[in-house]
């Protein structure tokens, strides 16, 4: 993240004041509240089952049980569910990024009748909870026989996402007009202008869009839970329910390890790409 740019003398304070020390203490306490649950998950993932249930509760495992991670990978068919999640997320992200870039370009650079009204519809569907349409969509998808297939995600991807359309529209609107004027003089059509001029300039927006939509699908629970059977389902559904002992009881330590493994890709994506995300979200937030 970018550094601070508060340097004006009136507001800046000397370094070691009681209030500065108090501020660090406050930050430390808050940070513990935010990191605590993550730490507890990782500790649980390293405990034996007896240690997890021990009374009084123990903070650290006597000996780290790395085997929990091994069991998380083998107790359920972790590789297969990861492959499902990867396939679904990548395919949706590619499709929705392509279509949203097209639509965003249309709204930013082209003129058409009823454009303003259409854009208002884009904005209002951004506000519409997805779950409202998901349940009836589920019934429709069942009717046309695409439940237990990945077709729903293809359709969602081809349909563009209002949020990403907005993101691309903001991005494309900021590109100077001279660029396309020159191309039009040279006899370029809009498809070429889009593909040859605007797309190569927009890789930050393309990467943001791809990674955001990838993480949405990777993290989604309810759509795969409704639409996919045991063989097709994603990691997010698999780790909630299927770490069980023969008597059907959940095994919290192994489940914790599974949840940690499942979260790692998303954390990495956000750590590496947070600057892009923030910039694009701020652009849509301020001007929305």
């Amino acid at each position: 993240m970018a550094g601070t740019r508060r340097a004006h003398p009136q507001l800046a304070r000397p370094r070691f004041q009681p209030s500065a020390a108090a501020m660090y203490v406050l930050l430390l306490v808050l940070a513990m509240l935010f990191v605590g649950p993550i730490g507890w998950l990782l500790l649980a993932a390293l405990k034996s089952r007896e240690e997890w249930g021990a009374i009084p509760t123990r903070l650290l495992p006597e000996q780290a049980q790395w085997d929990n991670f091994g069991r998380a990978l083998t107790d359920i068919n972790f590789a297969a569910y990861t492959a499902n999640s990867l396939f679904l997320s990548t395919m949706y992200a590619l499709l929705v990024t392509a279509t949203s870039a097209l639509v965003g370009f249309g709204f930013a650079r082209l003129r058409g009748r009823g454009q303003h009204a259409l854009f208002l519809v884009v904005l209002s569907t951004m506000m519409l909870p997805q779950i409202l349409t998901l349940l009836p969509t589920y019934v429709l998808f069942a009717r046309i026989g695409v439940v237990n297939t990945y077709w729903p995600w293809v359709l969602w991807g081809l349909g563009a996402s209002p949020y990403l359309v907005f993101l691309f529209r903001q991005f494309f609107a900021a590109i100077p007009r001279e660029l396309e004027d020159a191309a039009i003089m040279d006899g370029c059509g809009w498809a070429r202008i889009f593909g040859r001029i605007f797309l190569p300039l927009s890789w930050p927006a393309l990467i943001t869009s791809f990674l955001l939509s990838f993480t949405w699908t990777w993290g989604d629970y309810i759509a795969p839970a409704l639409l996919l059977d045991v063989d097709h389902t994603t990691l997010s559904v698999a780790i909630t329910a299927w770490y069980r002992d023969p008597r059907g009881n959940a095994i919290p330590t192994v489940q914790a390890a599974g949840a940690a493994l499942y979260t790692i890709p998303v954390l990495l994506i956000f750590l590496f790409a947070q600057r892009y995300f923030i910039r694009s979200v701020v652009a849509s937030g301020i001007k929305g």
Partner: protein
Amino acid sequence: MAARSWSRYSNRTFYLFVSPWVAGFVLLTAVPLVYAFGMSLTNFDGSSPRWRWVGLRNYAELYRDTDAWASLLRTLGFTAIVVPLSVAGALGLAVLLNRRLKAVGLWRTIFFLPSVVPVVAMAIMWKLVFNRDAGLLNAVLAVAGIDSITWLVDPVAFYALVTVSLWGLGGGMVIMLAALQGVPPELEEAAVVDGASRWRVFRHVTVPMISPVLFFQVVTGVIASFQIVVQPLLLAETNSISGVGHVPRSTHLYMVQVYEEFFQSNRFGYGSAMLWVFFIVILAITLLVQRSSRLWVYYEVDSDGRH
């Protein structure tokens, strides 16, 4: 001559470019909503082909359904608690982390990270924290000599859900941080030179300057809070192989009840009626918030994004 043919070409091209979204909107949003309305006028159970037209009976029943009213009020109450707290919390953190600090990037990352943890992992994590016998919270309480609390049952479960929701406020924090850094320092300096206190500068200069971002956070926060369903489902004490347990009353939000009507009671007609009523409620509230924004949001650029 050139201008006219140009504009016709452009019109057609515009529709060509936006056609994926138009088709998607019609087929994946409008049609399902209309279909849901159609379903809400029947007694469809999700599988049996022998469903009947029942007119507005589902809506009449919904009007008398005290559970549905209770869950709607609970959802509104939950939103009224969570959204102000998370927006204020995010703003507070952003102000705190907008100062000169040691390792400022590390602090920011710490508060930001929880907001990107996927909801399923979040639920698993918090169940471990809230666990009655082996959880972190009760272990901390035990050190302070306080008896264990059963967090995920009534009535405490509501506050557990609030806690889980607030944990993700780091996403809003980074956005506000970026907004704070967009405030021209000259403005705040001028106010300081005029003798305004730090609080007054913050209240009368900084907050109005970032009010569009605050507004955006309130709107998206309200919408997000309305559609919460996975968290209560997954935080519920598990007693079945599906991983989804019996949701306690205090976290029985509106969408949870809709979900149960669909998939536990197989009342697709009734569930669709519930969806439609919620759709109207959300539209009304969104419009209300939009209207109120004129009173308190200060725009440097107009709402079309033009300067």
